[in-house]
């Protein structure tokens, strides 16, 4: 035994556990903290391998203080998840440098578990789950190895803790389902730390020369009842009102009153599972009438907004109408907002607008004429448009004639405003692909879209999508299917390979199930699941009784499982031999407690010479199982049964033969 009471395997397990815990934070923690962790690990390894001395107490104290300071400087706080996990990481590293006794090593294993928890709180994607499982398993195995005085080999520690985890899994699952969830947070949620993705507050099509098409999922949608066709699935996002000739922006200042509407078509109900964006936008199809969720609201221009930034996936339900009637004329503020003068920017476009308006009968006719302009003007849809000049619309209309949705929507609204017609740019997503495995539509970042809304006195806000006339296929299919070039390789691969798409659908369905049913399993989900299970009428007390009852049953089961442990099999082996010795004793062959099996067998063979071969066979089998190479693993059930059979035969044989001579 090692003088410190900790075997080298236990020490190694602890190192692996800490490394696994650190690995979970590699992509988020600051680089210096990763460096600290790796350095500490290397130092311990060198200590283990080449007896490199560990740092003294003074150095360690200074190091710990320094690391604390560094964390505070780098995060300007030590509260919050990111700072907290970094602090855990570096303090764990510092602790690693003073591991001498098992006690220190156990602290490190605990830090590894805490790192796992921090990682779980930060990110919950299905992809990371195997990593989490591994980290947890290794940390518990390290605890197991450290809990025993014997130097347990890593494989045995892994097997023991893995077994306990498997035995514990049913109870954990049960608790997960039944333990009552809270309706809301008990204390404040941490401020958002995530980078933003997806649609933003502004749009400057002219500044983009290559639109990166991300295959990331923006959200998933389940429709109640039939879904509208793809060309009608306009997912409404940020509405942009302010234009400086180059960039469109959301209205951040005072807006206008909301124009009241009346539904004309039947309502469309759906459930949206939104991926985190770091922004507060919610998406709904076409004209959103309701969005569930406390404190979610709609802006005057019909955009749904959450009360806070969406940093973790959320689920909400929406009701929309594909056709509505505006019941009141446009408010003065609304008209002012969406007919903002263009000033001296894009003069050629303004001239074109005036000329086209003069040739039109009314606003509706002008709207159609402008749309035809995009249809017949030789415009082309591309995701790699050239950069545009400062007067971006002039450059687009009279020079490049290449662009994507943002370009055309921007140009169209400019044409409308130049003629004094209230209009705005709406950004969002278009379409979405059906996932047959999960039974929902997936809307990806590559489905991002922009279109125009024009106020017509007789019809109210009317959607106009100039991209639809430039590239009509865009409405029916996704971007990837539309273009041969300029789109990502993976995107094209998915279009071409059916099996690959199928695989992606399956994975996406699994990830969605994980997100929806496990990670976001909240009070509502719990109540509806209990309802489905027929337990809907149970109150908390009944639930507690149920939980405890099942837990007790589980405990009894575990006790039985513990009785079936390897040691129990060894016990059974011992017992079999004990019965043999007892039989010999009853038949008058004295067996002393200190007699080895060989001596006992010899004495029995002397007593019953005619049974000698049977006795030898039995004792040899026992010795092989008990002391031979097979003794390393517990005896198999069949082997024990065979031994029992031999014993019973011997018991009968010795009973039938005459009493042996004694002495």
């Amino acid at each position: 035994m090692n003088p410190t009471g900790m075997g080298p395997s236990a020490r190694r397990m602890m190192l692996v556990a800490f490394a696994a815990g650190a690995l979970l934070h590699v992509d988020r923690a600051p680089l210096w903290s990763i460096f600290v962790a790796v350095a500490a690990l290397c130092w311990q390894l060198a200590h283990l391998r080449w007896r490199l001395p560990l740092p003294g107490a003074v150095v360690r104290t200074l190091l710990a203080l320094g690391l604390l300071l560094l964390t505070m400087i780098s995060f300007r706080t030590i509260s919050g998840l990111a700072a907290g996990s970094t602090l855990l990481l570096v303090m764990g590293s510092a602790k690693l440098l003073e591991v001498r006794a098992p006690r220190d090593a156990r602290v490190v294993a605990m830090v590894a578990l805490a790192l796992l928890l921090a990682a779980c709180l930060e990110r919950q994607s299905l992809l990371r789950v195997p990593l989490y499982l591994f980290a947890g398993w290794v940390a518990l195995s390290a605890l197991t190895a450290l809990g025993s005085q014997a130097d347990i080999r890593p494989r045995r520690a892994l097997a023991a803790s893995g077994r306990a985890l498997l035995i514990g899994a049913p109870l954990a699952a049960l608790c997960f389902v039944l333990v009552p969830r809270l309706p809301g947070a008990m204390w404040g949620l941490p401020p958002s730390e995530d980078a933003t993705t997806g649609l933003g507050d502004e749009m400057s099509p002219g500044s983009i020369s290559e639109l990166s098409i991300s295959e990331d999922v923006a959200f998933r949608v389940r429709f109640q009842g039939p879904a509208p066709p793809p060309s009608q699935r306009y997912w409404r996002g940020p509405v942009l009102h302010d234009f400086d000739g180059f960039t469109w922006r959301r209205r951040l200042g005072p807006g206008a009153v909301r124009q009241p509407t009346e539904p004309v078509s039947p309502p469309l109900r759906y459930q949206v599972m939104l991926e985190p964006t770091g922004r507060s936008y919610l998406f709904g199809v076409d004209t959103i009438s309701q969005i569930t969720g406390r404190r979610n609201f709609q802006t005057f221009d019909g955009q749904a907004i959450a009360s806070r930034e969406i940093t973790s996936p959320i689920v909400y339900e929406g009701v929309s109408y594909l056709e509505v009637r505006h019941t009141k004329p446009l408010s003065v503020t609304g008209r002012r907002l969406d007919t903002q003068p263009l000033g001296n920017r894009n003069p050629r476009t303004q001239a074109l607008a005036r000329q086209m308006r003069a040739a039109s009968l009314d606003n509706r006719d002008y709207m159609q004429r402008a749309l035809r302009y995009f249809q017949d003007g030789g415009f082309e849809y591309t995701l790699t448009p050239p950069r545009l000049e400062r007067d971006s619309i002039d450059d687009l209309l009279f020079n490049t004639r290449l662009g994507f949705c943002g370009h055309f929507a921007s140009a169209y609204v400019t044409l409308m405003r130049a003629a004094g017609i209230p209009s705005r740019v709406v950004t969002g997503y278009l379409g979405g692909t059906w996932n047959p495995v999960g039974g929902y539509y997936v809307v990806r970042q590559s489905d991002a879209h922009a279109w125009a809304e024009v106020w017509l006195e007789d019809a109210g806000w009317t959607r106009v999508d100039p991209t639809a006339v430039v590239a009509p296929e865009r409405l029916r299919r996704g971007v990837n299917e539309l273009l041969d070039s300029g789109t990502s390789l993976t995107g094209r691969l998915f279009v071409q390979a059916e099996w690959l798409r199928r695989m992606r659908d399956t994975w996406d369905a699994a990830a969605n199930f994980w997100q929806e049913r496990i990670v976001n399993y909240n009070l509502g989900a719990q109540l509806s699941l209990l309802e489905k299970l027929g337990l809907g009428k149970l109150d908390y007390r009944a639930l507690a009784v149920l939980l405890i009852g099942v837990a007790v049953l589980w405990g009894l089961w575990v006790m039985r499982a513990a009785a079936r442990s390897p040691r129990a099999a060894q016990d059974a082996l011992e017992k079999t031999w004990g019965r043999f010795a007892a039989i010999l004793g009853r038949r008058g062959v004295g067996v002393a407690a200190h007699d080895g099996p060989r001596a006992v067998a010899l004495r029995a063979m002397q007593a019953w010479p005619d049974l000698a071969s049977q006795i030898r066979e039995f004792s040899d089998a026992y010795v092989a199982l008990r002391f031979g190479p097979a003794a390393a693993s517990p005896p198999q059930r069949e082997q024990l049964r065979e031994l029992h059979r031999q014993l019973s035969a011997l018991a009968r044989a010795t009973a039938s033969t005459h009493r042996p001579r004694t002495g």
Partner: protein
Amino acid sequence: MSLFRQRMLRWALRRQGPDSLPLQLKPRRIYILPTGTGWTFGLLVIAMFLAGMNYGNGLALLLTFWLAAFALVGMIQTQRSLAGLTLQHVHAEPAFAGGEVVLRAQLHSRLSLRDLTLDAEGARQVPVTGAGSHDEGSGDLSLSFPARQRGRWRAPVLRLSTSAPYGLFRTWTWLSLDVSTLVYPTPAGMRPLPELPGAEEGSRRLAGSLDELAALRPFREGDSPRQVAWKAYARGAPLLVREYQGHAAALREFDFDALPHDDTETRLSQLCRWIVDAAAENQRWTLRLPGSAVVAGAGPEHRRHCLSQLATFGAGSVT
């Protein structure tokens, strides 16, 4: 031992009654509490639970429940690892006062002996050694107690415990076994072995025995200075004592009353010294103690008998 522990011990002993060997441990006498690591683990699980509840984070909650279930499995396994353990034999060897009483417990368990801890108030566990015992569940656990006082030594309440397999819980049982042994007096005293009967003068005896000089042996406390091989010592050898063959057959008399009137313990120590020496030199002696029968003899059995008489001298009989 804390007051709480004492009260709990008293309660437990009342509950389980006296033990007799061989003893198979029943679950009802096995107690369990978390270890320091176990408490930390519990705190971590509670922290995770609160965080998971607060953030409505299913993954964190799942992890929490799983870790808690793991700890529960560990608790049951730890408790079960002691249940069914058989204590076959417990035995303590006699010792001299000032030395150590070694208590040996022979047991058979599902656990490796290394993971079992046998302890008692004031005792020190003798580490399990030997290559064969590495993972063995059957064998001896030893405890050594300081042998303070001459007389009958009774084993205190023993505690057999383990925290295997995960170190999160420690389970234990109290054993109140009727195990006792004798503590002999400390062998001490500078007086030489009493003269052989018939020898009148030391010098003559010495001269006479010189012929029978058989061997030299290392000096032991209490040896007569006259028997020391001073010449050899002067030449740089360690203190050696001449041994004489003739003495083996002769009968020496160790008489309590013949000793000068020191206090009883000093006299007993001197007698003990003589018996140990005489036995080591394979001599014959009789021990005379007030109020006990006189038997002449030699050898380990006689030695044991005489030492036992010294150990129990004065206990329950007239001095």
